[in-house]
Every structure is written in structure tokens, then in C-alpha cells.
């Protein structure tokens, strides 16, 4: 991040992205009975991914405010 710039994470339109732990990931995969590849994807070149230093293969939890549900959780696998 260049000096003087504001982190995009602080922008109101950017939902909260968090890298989840292996345990959390396993719980998630178990809950939906899916393999990792069946998660939605996000590119490693995505500005948010770069900003939170997530690496290839990480899974990020996205917490966004939703018109219908208040807050909605989503998970994305970081890919190339």
C-alpha cells in the first residue's frame, strides 16, 4: 500500500474478508459435504486478497450486509 492511500478494506463497499483457519475450513466443508474446489472462487489478484495477504489455497470468509438477511456469510477459495 502506498503511503497516503487509504486501505480498500476501510471502504464501506468492501465487505469484511477474513482468512479462515483449517479447523474452520474443515467444519465448513463438512457442513456442506463438499470438497474445497466446490467453494466459490476468488482470484489471488483480487485487490482485497492482496490487501489481506491471503495465499493460494486459502479460504476467505466474506461477511457482507444483505438486504434480505441482515448479514450474509460467504466463503471463497483463493485461486490463481
Amino acid at each position, binding site marked *: 500500500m502506498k503511503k497516503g492511500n487509504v486501505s480498500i478494506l476501510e471502504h464501506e463497499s468492501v465487505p469484511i474478508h477474513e482468512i479462515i483457519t483449517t479447523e474452520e475450513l474443515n467444519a465448513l466443508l463438512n457442513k*456442506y459435504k463438499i470438497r474445497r474446489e*466446490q*467453494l*466459490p472462487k476468488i482470484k489471488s489478484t483480487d485487490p482485497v486478497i492482496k490487501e489481506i495477504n491471503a495465499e493460494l489455497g486459502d479460504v476467505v470468509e466474506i461477511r457482507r450486509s444483505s438486504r*434480505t*438477511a441482515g448479514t*450474509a456469510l*460467504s*466463503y471463497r477459495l483463493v485461486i490463481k
Partner: protein
Amino acid sequence: MRTKRIQGLKFGLLSPKEIRKMSAAKVITADTYGEDGFPIELGLVNQRLGVIDPGLRCKTCGGRMGECPGHFGHIELAAPVMHIGYVKLIYKMLSATCRKCGKVLLEEEDRQHFLYEIGQQRERQAGVGEVVKLIFKEAAKKDVCMHCGESFSVNAEDLSESLKNEEISNELKKRLEEQGYSLTKTVHIKRSLDDKCIFNWREVPGNDSELLRSYLIDDFGIAWVKNAEISKTQKDKRLTFSADKHVVEITLSAKRDKISIEFEDGRTYEQPVKKTAGKLNVHNYKWTITDEEKIYILRRKGLELTVYCGERKRQIKYDKPTTYKEIDEDGKERRLMPTDVRERLERIPDEDLALLGMDAKSARPEWMVLTVLPVPPVTARPSITLESGQRSEDDITHKLVDIIRINQRFMENRDAGAPQLIIEDLWELLQYHISTYFDNDIAGVPPARHRSGRPLKTMAQRLKGKEGRFRGSLSGKRVNFSARTVISPDPDIDIGEVGVPEEIAKELTITVNVIERNLKLLSETVGHGGKYPGANYVRRADGKKVKVTDTNYETLSEELSLGWKVERHLVDGDIVLFNRQPSLHRLSIMAHYVRVMPGKTFRLNPSVCPPYNADYDGDEMNLHVLQTEEARAEAKILMAVQRNIISPRFGRPIIGGIHDYITGIFLLTRGVKKLEKEAVLDILDNVDIDVLDEPAGTSISSTYEKVPYWTNKQIFSMILPKDLNLNFRGKVCEKCIEKGLTCEKEQCPHEAYVLIKNGKLISGVIDEAAVGSFKGLIIDRIFRHYGEVASKEFIKNTSRLAINAILRTGFSFGISDEDIPTEGKDQIREDAVHEAEKKVDALIMAYEAEELEALPGRTLEESLELLIMQSLGSARDEAGDIAERHLGIENPGVLMAKSGARGSLLNLTQMTACVGQQSVRGERISRGYQKRTLPHFKPDDRSADARGFVRASFKDGLSPAEYFFHAVGGREALVDTAVRTSQSGYFQRRLINALQDLEVKYDGTVRETRDTVVQFKYGEDGVDPSKKRRRESCGYRQDNKG
């Protein structure tokens, strides 16, 4: 099962080798069938190419008709011919390549650049068409090959720049010859300006030696720079660079008017400099070239001398449809025969094919010139036997016959040593036949015709156009067991039914297996013969299908036994799918139960119009008969009308009362009316009620007898479930709460507060909000609490009640219902319109006197317009209010608007009181003539009249000016709807295409076909609108267990 994914499609050309390889037989004879009626061997209906006659076996694969897919054969062409589909591409390729070496005519740099571009496009999975187009354009410009002559080296030591072009040229040529090069090589020298050269000298920013180096290479063509440094003194700018052999210094004088270049060996060159737009242009640059350096520099592109000593290109001329000519230096034309063309295309190296948009692995350009012709399998061109027993061949076969004939003749003539003229004629003929075999609709070529004079349908014709393979056979699906006709209303049938004309019911069939239980019934059905309800076909146990005819129905009826199948007519109670286009949501196709009726139209209960968006002004609908038990079960459970009363779109009933149903129920439930038994029974006629409620009380009749009576509200209560409790505010609600007043609930003067206690309507009037489609709160509640059947029954009963009620009084709306008394008219004119116009004039005066104050964020003009619009708008509303007062609630128009049956109060206002301001893009009409809308207004007249205010009502009639303004505003509305429908239609289509494979799984996730999650919870909250309760959001499935 794992789904397989298509990774890509690859298109290529068939190589002659491939054609021969896939061929099952070489076809030599032009004949088809012999005298014995059997296919001739080596002929076009060769038995090795597949079978089309029942009973025969394929000689290639041994399959019978239906099993054998057919096999390709081939014809060896006596001489190559052009493939008509590629003539343009061939022309472009000939123009873009060297006639001698076949390479694409591009400088090495350009070639690399274009290859890179193409690689990039390919990587992006984007088309290379644009790049290739550019390459063809670039390459066609060149007139000499830069590849052919490259290998020579010439000692050009004393070629000085004083020599003229030809002299250099001749000199080089001479030296080339000395070195043993062929004389045919032409040396071509190009200088942009005879002895003057121009090159650009860019100022080098910073101390970037890399940059400097590239400049030197680009601008000077000096390739051997190793190190370069830039030094800057006060006095001048100096660039020094060292190279392999030389140290060169380039100096820009302090005044920046001169540049000097100094070589190590003392040679110096000086240039006057002209500065333009950040660049220093060096003119009259003189360069004395020595030794090897010279020829090298000559060849550099950046320098003005370019030496090509390759093959000169000759202009190619393409004569439609299939001839190419080459124009030589003397301007003489020479025809390129297909053999020549093929040879040239063969010379194009594989490495250059990418530049031409081809992939050497799947296509070579010379394959565009045919030497072998594949013969499609007979299954692709079946011959048909006419009733006379004569065989009639397919058009493709006819064409192939022609081709083989000419091909044979060509060979015979050539072998016999016929004169060149005859050979060429035959060649031309062969070309014609093969061209028309591919496409019989080529510009400038007379189409090949059948004996009858009908043009033949050849390859391209099979694929092209509306009825072609793509649009007609692949995209255009046709379906059996369907019917289409006009719809008309029938309020007496159930909402889940559809009235089917007998004519249609006799055509559409359902196949029934004969079993013990239905044997007798079906036997009777078949026994009816052609009469309804009968059967059209019977399928015997051995699978043989027999048509039921006037002569055989009795025997068939008797013979009918277990294991047979009967294709019986559609009868009452069969389930069918009913559909109206455009099928925009799932409710556009619903399952109905058949009711066979006389007449020629489909009958539809008006209550089911909203989901189909249908009306009866000539709409047609489609009907599909389900053919399997599974389909019928699925339709019954998922698609039945009653199941879809609640729309998945907004979670409210989409089926319910419309138009007169609402008026009727409104009239019935309004106020408190006492009805005697006769009237009650009249109203309840046809309504599913078993026991009449106890009367509400007794009244004394004129003969002093005690007569029991029922109230109108009681009658409505009789069709409500007995334990229904509900309260809401109806359509007629005046929104007192929003206006800051208190709601008087049961005492509401408008009867807007609907209260239902234990299935009794206590207060309120039933209107659109209670039983209408799209709103229907009572229907909504009944659906969720008592289920599909109860709500279907409720809708049915409401409709019947409403019809009976409205029929008792009758209901009509005529032109006289738009009349208001004179005093009302006066009021509208004086109180509403005149007042507003005065206000407008006052505003304009204030504006002109510059006394008007601008509204925040608006210009003065905008403020004026806004205020005028406001006062004119309220003028219309006021006029409407006055009109409403004078019309009274009993006016049928007001009744319909208030109950929500049809129309709005605005519609009524416009008809009876005042049409109001017309607008274009939300503004008053201001365009037309200069500074005025119509010529009889003064310029800049901003008054109400001059800007499209229509003070008349539709009933009164519009003045010519008003009529004009109304047309202006009306046109905008018309255009808007036209644009909106097409745009939203396309948008919807795109959405459907993008989302069609997504599925909500049982765990509430939305997944696509590979089971990849798209949404972890459907709609983020997991709510299915059609399952949620009113004003609540309960989960589709809150937990994620199992």
C-alpha cells in the same frame, strides 16, 4: 455420474489423405440402380455407403437399415478444382504471400510482432480475425519479397550516396551475378526521398543507457551498440556510446540547431536540426557508408535505404467466381489454373500459417483446392420410392451424378490427348458442378436445376436460412401432441380446467396400456370408431400399429386384448399443460384438467388470466398432452393451477378475482343489506354450500308476516372457512394513519377495515385487496392455512358469488357515466383550472420581473418550470376531486376504480374533468418551432396553454392544440413501452441463460451443475417468497441438518 465438459470445438479442413482414409468406397460409376433394381457396385448408391432399403445389409459394417449410420465414399478428381467456400480466402492468401517462396510478405519485425499479437489473442481465447485482417492488408501492400534473396552478401564498398537508385541497383545486381547468384533476382532499392533522409532524434530522458541504445537501434539502425552513456554539459548535449568496433559520439549543439555524429575513426557528420513538438527532426542527413557497414545499414528499415533483392510480387486478379489471374510486369494477364494455385498454397510454410489465421495441424491452405471429393453416405441423401414404384433420387445424388460424369469425361479426353481447349472447357464444367454441389446460390453462377426447372438443394442450401439445418432443425424444436387455438372466457369451468374443443380432443391422444381393469372400457372406446370419445390407433401386442378406421373398428374392438395399447382421444379429466407465450415465468406453463366442449376455442377461467397475462382479444394459447405417467404425476403435483395460486415472484396470490368479480363482491359486501331467502338462494346459486346459515333476524313484511332475513356480509361469510380470523385494511382505505388521523377500524366510514372473526365477516367491504389477483389477502391466508384445494374452492365460490351478486343489479359503464352536472363543470373550470392558470401567470410575471426566487439546487428557469408543473398538477388533482364528488360513489366508474376492479381515479379524472399537463421526458412540452411549441403562440410564451396543458376532459373533447400536445405526450409513452419491452425482454433472456442451471439443493445452498456452491443460502436468507408468511421472513430451511 460425472458430467463431461466440452473444452472446445476445433474446425479444420479435410485433407485429401483424410478423405481417402475415411472413405468406404471409391465411386466411379455415375449410375445408381441397375435394371434388377439393386444398387450398382461402385455406383453412387453403393451398398458400402450404407443402406436405406429395408432388409438389406450394409457391406461395410453389416448393419441393417437404422443400425448402420452410413459411410463416406470418395471420388478421385481428374484435376484439382477450387472449393467455392474458400475462393476469397485463397485470393487473400495468394496476394499476401511470395509467388516463389510462399512466405508471408512481412518484415521480420512485423512478423514477430503479429505472431505475438496472435499468441496473445489465442491465450485470451479471443478471435484472431482482426489481426489476420491486418496482416493480409499489410502483406498485400508489399510488392517484393523480403525473404527470397536474403542469403547473399555483397561487397558494396564504394557505393556512394551520390549514385542514383538505378545505379545502385544495377551495381548490386552486377556484384550478385559475380558471386554466382541467379540473374532473375531483382535488386530493388527504396529510398523515401531521393538523396535526403529523415530520421527522428528523440531527446533522451535521464541517464538511461538502455533507452538510448534502443533509440539508436530504432532511429539509426545501428545494431551493434554495446554500451551507451549520456553526458550533458552546459554547452551541449553529448551522447557517447561504444560499440564493437567504434566509439561514436553524437552531439547536439547548444543552440539545438545542429547535431553532429562522430565516429572513432574520425568521420564526422553534421546535421542541421529542426525542432518540432518535442522531437528533433534532423534533415539532410548525410551518411557516408563504408565497408560491410554499408550494406547492413542499407537493409535496415529505420534508415531510408532498403534493399530487397527478392522476388517481385505480381498482382493477383480474382475473377468471380473461381478464376485467378496474375498480372506480370508488362501488364499481361496469365490465368492461374487450380493446379498452379494449389502449388503456390503448398509453398506456404507451416510456420507462416498462424499469421494467416490457420493452424497447420488442422488445416493446410492447399486443402482448399480439392483433389478428392468426399461422397456423403446414402443415409444423408436417401432416395424415395414414388407411388408408381419409380425411384426418385435426392438432389445431392443428382449433383454427384453430374460430377462423376464430367470427371469421367475429363479423364477420357485427357488420356486420349484431346486439345487443350477441350480440356479447359471440361475443367471449367467440372468446376461448375463442384461449385454448385457445395452452394447452388453463388452470385454470377447460374444455379443448377432439376429436370423440372427447380433449382437443386445442395449442401449450403441444406444448412442455410430459416428452414436450414441450424435454424430449422437444431434450434427450432417442434413438438407432437400439442394444439393451439384462440382462448375465450368461461367462468363456469374450474380455474384448474381448460375447455378443449372436441375437434382438438379427437386429434390429441393418450396411449393407454390394455390391462384387465380397463379392457372393457377401452374396447368400448375403440368400438366408437371415429366418433368421440374413441381411439385413433391401436398397437397390437406384437408392436404393430393399426389405424382405427370406419371399416375395422368393430373387429379391433373385439380383438382388443391384454398387452395391446390404445391411443385414445382426450377426455374430461386428462391432465395437460397449457401455455401462453411469452413464457416469462414458470406460471406461464401450468397443468390443467381437460374439459371437452363444443366450439373451436380453448376455454379458460378469467381468474387464471393474470399468471398467463392473457386476455380474450384474440390471444392464442398452446396445449400439450402429457404422454407418460411420470410426466402426468409431476404435472399434477408441481404444475397444477391450484398449486401455483401463490406466485414465487412476490409470495402473494397471482390468481384471484379480476374485473367484474371484484365489482360484484364489492357490491355484495358493501354496507349492510338485508336479504330474504329467495334473494339469498339466488345469490348463492352454484356456490358450494351445503347448509344455509341461520338467518340473522326476522323482519315484518307488508302482509305483517315474520320473514327471516340474512345479511349480505353473512352471505360472504358462508364461503369462508369456519375458523378464519383475519383483519386488514382494504383497497378503499383512505390511509388515515398516514395522514396523521386515527383509524376508526370497524367504524370506518369507507368500510375499509376488514375484520373476520371465526369465519364471519364482521366489518369491512371485500375488494381487490381481499380477493383480487396480486393482492388477495384472504386468498393468501386461506392458501397457507387451509391449502390449495380450499383456496381454489374459495376463488371459485367468490367468483360465483360475485357473478350472482352483480347480475342481480346489473352493471354497466357508458359515456353518460362520464357526465357531471353543470355546476361541477363550472367548479372545475373556475376553482381548479382558472385558479391554476392564474397562479401560473403570476409565477411567470414574477419570473419576468426577476422577483422569483430559485429553489435550492435549481436554476431560476428550472424553479419556474417546477412550480408551474406543481400548480398544474394539483389543478388536475383538484379537478379530479371535484369530479369525484359530483359523480358520487355509486357511479360505476368510481365503483370500479375504488374497488380495484379496473381503472384508476386518474383515468376517471381525465375522462370527466381534465386531462392535465402533457409531458415529454418529465418536462412540459417546449420544443417545436423556434422558442414556441406551435406557430400561433408568441415566442417564449410559458403559459399553461402554450406548453401542453390540456384543460379539457376526454368527454368534452380536446381543442386542436390540445389534441396535438396529447399526441406528443402519447407518442413518448408509445416509444417508451416499445423500447422497454425489447430491452427488458433481452435482459430477461440473458439472465435466464446465465442462471438456468442453478439449483437450490436440499441443504439450502444454490449450486451449479458441478455441485459448486454459488450461494451458501438461497437469496442469502434462504427464504422462498412463496412459502414465507406475510410480513415475516421464515427460513426456507433454517437449519442445515440433513
